[in-house]
């Protein structure tokens, strides 16, 4: 992988971390707010179904996770397992795709 791509990955990880900092804070605040007086599926769906703001927020959250986690694992694989090269990057690209697919599936499940 070229220096340029490695630098871009580094920037993507920092940028996604900044997005995640906000998303996690909003997500935690929502959980704390939502569990007041019990938690039901109906209450959650009542908040998220057809709500484009929540759709956009959680879609952004999923994208940030799908970018951030594989790049972090990339360094962990190198430093802990000495695993580098194309095989590692292909596995991580698949992992990123899996995260994005599962995440978006969940987001749409509570939106539709």
């Amino acid at each position: 992988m070229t220096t340029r791509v490695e630098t871009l990955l580094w920037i993507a990880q920092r940028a996604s971390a900044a997005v995640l900092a906000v998303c996690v804070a909003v997500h935690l605040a929502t959980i704390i707010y939502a569990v007041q007086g019990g938690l039901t599926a109906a209450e959650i769906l009542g908040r998220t179904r057809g709500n484009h703001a929540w759709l956009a927020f959680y879609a952004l959250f999923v994208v940030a996770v799908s970018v951030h986690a594989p790049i972090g694992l990339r360094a962990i694989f190198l430093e802990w397992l000495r695993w580098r090269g194309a095989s590692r990057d292909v596995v991580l690209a698949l992992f990123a795709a899996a995260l994005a697919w599962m995440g978006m599936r969940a987001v749409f499940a509570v939106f539709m």
Partner: protein
Amino acid sequence: MKVSVWKGGAEGAFQEFEVPRLPSQTVLDVVTYIQRALDPTLAYRYACRVGMCGSCAMTVNGVPRWTCRTHVDKVVRDESLSIAPLRNLPVIRDLVTDMSEFFDKWARAKGQFHGRRTRDDDFDQVKPSSSERLQADAGIECIGCGVCYSACDVVSWNPDYLGPAALNRAWTLVKDERDGAKLERLRAVAGDAGCHSCHTHMSCTERCPKHLSPTASIAGLKREVLKSLIRGEL
């Protein structure tokens, strides 16, 4: 006091010696005493004895230090000392490590100065108060002792990582207004083996005997690489 000293190469063992405590005694004095009075086969490296040459660094009670400027009083624990070769470098024998890879990485980080002018040109004028000059000054007193390299966990995890000293050297040249190879240098220090692998643990900054901050230099390189990427040069 009891002094355990590493004997052997990569495979070896600590050997114990009884060394008298003296006022103002340095760890290098202890090693020299052992070699002169107790075990003439002990291999170790030193030159200047005054903290200039950077050749006497060893691991003292688990911490990399320049031994010539480390007083026994400051590091002795329960009247005992352990002295081992630097971590992250191959051991040649006893306390002597092979520093080739350490210095090869300086070359890989483009640690050589590349002047832009010829002998026919006038001198470059660098104002002592200029921001570039001040930033270069902050990192320029490195003596190449290898203490930061030995303290760095990223080096132990990723043997290709250039390490704090080489990256600090590159930074001082990136900030050298007379140098004409900045872009090649930024390319050399970016990426998985370079500044972007730094975890900002700051062990290098904590241990540097010259109180430099390679961590700050590495952060500076990240900024310069980013700028250069945005300008489309990288």
